[in-house]
């Protein structure tokens, strides 16, 4: 099952970490060298992940490239890595966005660039770890691991209210993840009571027969931790603050990848471990998701800060993903995984673009802008493509994901699907309303007249993202085929257990 | 015959103890305390604990009280103003009440706990035979070696601390 090509997954995680170590040795003043090293390391990571993508066998349902090394054997936790159809796209998204984010931070980082790059690489290592870990404790370690660099990224290089924002971000996530840890331990202990072997290995725990009552509680704990991260509706207030205060690169990774850890967590852990509870919770979470979609879109309509607007749009987009996951059928889940990647690309690109305007005008207030299309035509073109992709224009990546989710959800919760479709309209409303005030109309400020258009570096960041957006929009099958086997396997497990809860069509 | 020694010594101890907390001039209190130490040293002798008795005299009377005298003399602490008892009456009453309660509890404890049998191996005649100090020395360097070493460290810390705190900046 696992291609014998050496611990390729461990190298994937270790590479950025080693890069960070290397950077530590470099003298802080030589910023050019630091930038080159960071970029090289993350590009190498991307190449490596392409190799994994190339050698990935789509017909196999289970985990591939599995590595297993006993870690803390006393409590049965071992260092287990593996990738399957569900985590592969997210892995690629992470390794793709990291170099882009690093490239974005070549300018606009006023001080301590070395520390910044180190945090970025550590963050990348942590994120890759989250998507590859198959042992609950290892997953938890990486899950918390990503918090620390993010804390520094926002805390040190953030905007004026960064301390408040970064504390809120960390406390929110910690509050949830503590419960998750509790649930993990409970699960492991329960597993030991039935099978006599204490283990935190996911594949082993999936089989554990857990009484429905308990399953609900454990699922609730996991769900809370992931819901905060997604973010689902009541727990979302940290996101806009975190984004507004985070530096551009931080925002790109925060929106691009960190949010997906929540939805990935649902798919990888919450659903397979507690299928019956998941089915029972599905209507509630779907309702929250739909409210999230409409609420996110509505609130972003009223925002006057670009980053805050994009942040709330993330709440709306991820509402779609959650809706897809909890529709629990092949189309919806594949759609949601694809939508995770799409959201990563389009929102990541949006943040890059907002970052570029911020670097030029040092403000994000929409009222300050106007008529930028005249002044920055190339920027306008890129912004148009990305905005349209985030609205879900057919032919671009956003539509494919959303359509699959809606088609899948329509099967199970017909009303929610229709409400979600209304979400698509609202999405267009706030995006175009922003577009009209920022890009069109007469330029309300004199400074808007002499803004220079995209530089080669900025183009180098955007073009690959836009190409990917078009590629996924027109040929999504390349990714979809990779997911089929794993998603059917996952849903098979879930449907098997939920059949006694309620008959699923 | 033991009672002949116990009663006066006990009376002496209690008397001087009372003086320690009642007298106004700190020097007299210190001397009263020295008196108590001697009374206790006598009691230790009664309990065939010669080593402890002598060490009591050396450490408490010889070293600690000298330190007290030094400090009292150096600081030239004035007398407590006469009506010190009557000034903060509520605190006084509360304190006495609590102490009464405390004594009551101790009495109950002592009362309910009478005359244990001999349990340990070191009966008094065995101790006389071997010699109290020899025994203590042997135990001190075998069974209680670690506490002994730790005490030495405590003393070192105390010396350094005292020197640092009292040094005039």
């Amino acid at each position, binding site marked *: 099952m696992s291609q014998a090509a050496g611990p390729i997954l461990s190298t994937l995680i270790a590479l950025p970490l080693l890069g960070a170590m290397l950077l530590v040795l470099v003298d802080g003043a030589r910023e050019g060298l630091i930038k080159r090293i960071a970029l090289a390391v993350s590009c190498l990571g991307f190449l490596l992940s392409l190799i994994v993508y190339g050698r990935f066998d789509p017909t196999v349902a289970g985990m591939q490239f599995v590595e297993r090394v006993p870690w803390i054997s006393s409590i049965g936790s071992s260092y287990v890595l593996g990738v399957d159809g569900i985590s592969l796209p997210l892995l690629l998204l992470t390794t793709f966005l990291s170099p882009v984010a690093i490239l974005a931070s070549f300018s606009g980082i006023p001080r301590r660039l070395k520390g910044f790059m180190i945090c970025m690489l550590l963050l990348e290592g942590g994120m890759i770890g989250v998507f590859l870990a198959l042992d609950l404790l290892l997953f938890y370690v990486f899950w918390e691991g990503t918090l620390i660099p993010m804390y520094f990224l926002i805390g040190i290089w953030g905007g004026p209210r960064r301390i408040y924002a970064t504390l809120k971000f960390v406390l929110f996530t910690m509050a949830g993840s503590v419960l998750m840890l509790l649930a993990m331990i409970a699960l492991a202990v329960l597993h030991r009571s039935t099978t006599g072997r204490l283990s935190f290995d996911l594949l082993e725990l999936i089989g554990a027969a857990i009484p429905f009552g308990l399953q609900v509680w454990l699922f609730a704990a996991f769900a809370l931790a992931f819901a905060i991260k997604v973010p689902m509706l009541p727990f979302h207030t940290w996101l806009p603050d975190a984004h507004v205060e985070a530096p551009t690169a931080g925002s790109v990774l925060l929106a691009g990848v960190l949010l997906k850890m929540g939805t990935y967590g649902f798919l990888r852990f919450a659903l397979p471990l507690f299928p019956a509870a998941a089915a029972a919770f599905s209507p509630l979470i779907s309702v929250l998701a739909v409210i999230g979609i409409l609420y996110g879109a509505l609130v972003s309509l009223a925002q006057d800060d670009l980053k805050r607007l994009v942040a709330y749009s993330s709440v709306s987009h991820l509402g779609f993903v959650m809706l897809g996951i909890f529709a629990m059928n092949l189309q919806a889940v594949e759609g949601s995984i694809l939508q995770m990647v799409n959201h990563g690309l389009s929102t990541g690109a949006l943040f890059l673009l907002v970052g570029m305007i911020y670097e030029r005008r040092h403000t994000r207030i929409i009222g300050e802008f106007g008529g930028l299309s005249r002044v920055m035509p190339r920027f306008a073109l890129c912004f148009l493509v990305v905005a349209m992709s985030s609205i879900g224009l057919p032919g671009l990546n956003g539509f494919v994901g959303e359509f699959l989710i809606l088609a899948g959800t329509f099967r199970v919760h017909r009303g929610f699907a229709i409400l979600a479709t209304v979400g698509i309209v609202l999405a267009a409303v706030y995006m175009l309303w922003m577009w009209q005030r920022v890009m069109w109309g007469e330029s309300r400020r004199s400074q808007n007249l002499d803004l220079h258009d995209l530089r080669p570096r900025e183009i180098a960041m955007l073009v690959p993202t836009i190409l990917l957006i078009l590629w996924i929009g027109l040929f999504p099958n390349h990714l979809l085929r990779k997911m089929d086997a794993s998603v059917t396997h996952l849903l098979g497990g879930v449907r098997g257990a939920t059949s006694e809860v309620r008959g699923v069509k | 015959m*033991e*009672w002949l020694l*116990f009663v006066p010594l*006990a*009376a002496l101890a*209690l*008397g001087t*103890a*009372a003086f*320690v*907390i009642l007298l106004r001039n*700190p020097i007299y209190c*210190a001397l009263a*305390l020295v008196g108590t*130490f001697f009374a*206790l040293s006598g*009691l*230790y002798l009664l309990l065939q*604990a010669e080593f*402890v008795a002598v*060490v*009591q005299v050396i*450490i*408490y009377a010889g070293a*600690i009280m000298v*330190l*007290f005298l030094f*400090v*009292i003399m*150096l*600081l030239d*602490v004035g007398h*407590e103003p006469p009506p*010190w008892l009557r000034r903060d009456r509520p605190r*006084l009453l509360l*304190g006495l009440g609590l*102490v009464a309660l*405390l004594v009551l509890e*101790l*009495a109950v404890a*002592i009362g309910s706990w009478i*005359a244990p049998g*001999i*349990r340990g*191996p*070191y009966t*008094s005649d065995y101790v006389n035979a071997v010699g109290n100090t020899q*025994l*203590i020395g042997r*135990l*001190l360097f075998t069974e*209680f070696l670690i506490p002994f070493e730790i*005490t030495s460290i*405590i003393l070192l810390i*105390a*010396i350094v*601390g*005292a020197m640092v*705190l*009292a040094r005039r900046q």
Partner: protein
Amino acid sequence: MRGAGCGVRGAMTGTVPLSAYLILSAALFAIGVIGVVIRRNALIIFMAIELMLNAVNLTFVAFSKFLGSMDGQIIVFFVMAVAAAEVALGLAIIIALYRNKESVNVDDINLLKG
């Protein structure tokens, strides 16, 4: 004065029972506590504390004799060592306090007020 004369007077001739010692040390301890609570001069409070320590030492030695185990005396030895250390530090503190407060009256020393 107190305690010593209670009920056991009858056994004048026998050896002094353990309870006599315990009562004596309890009394001493009580006097110590009263001293600490009532007095306002830091030094006197310090002496009262020494008094309480000695009351405890007495109990230890009494038990050591009546229980036939040397441990009591050894612990007394350690208590004395620690008491010496404590007095050294305590007096150093009092000196430092006196130097900047011109008084050792406990009520004046409230720098640690919250």
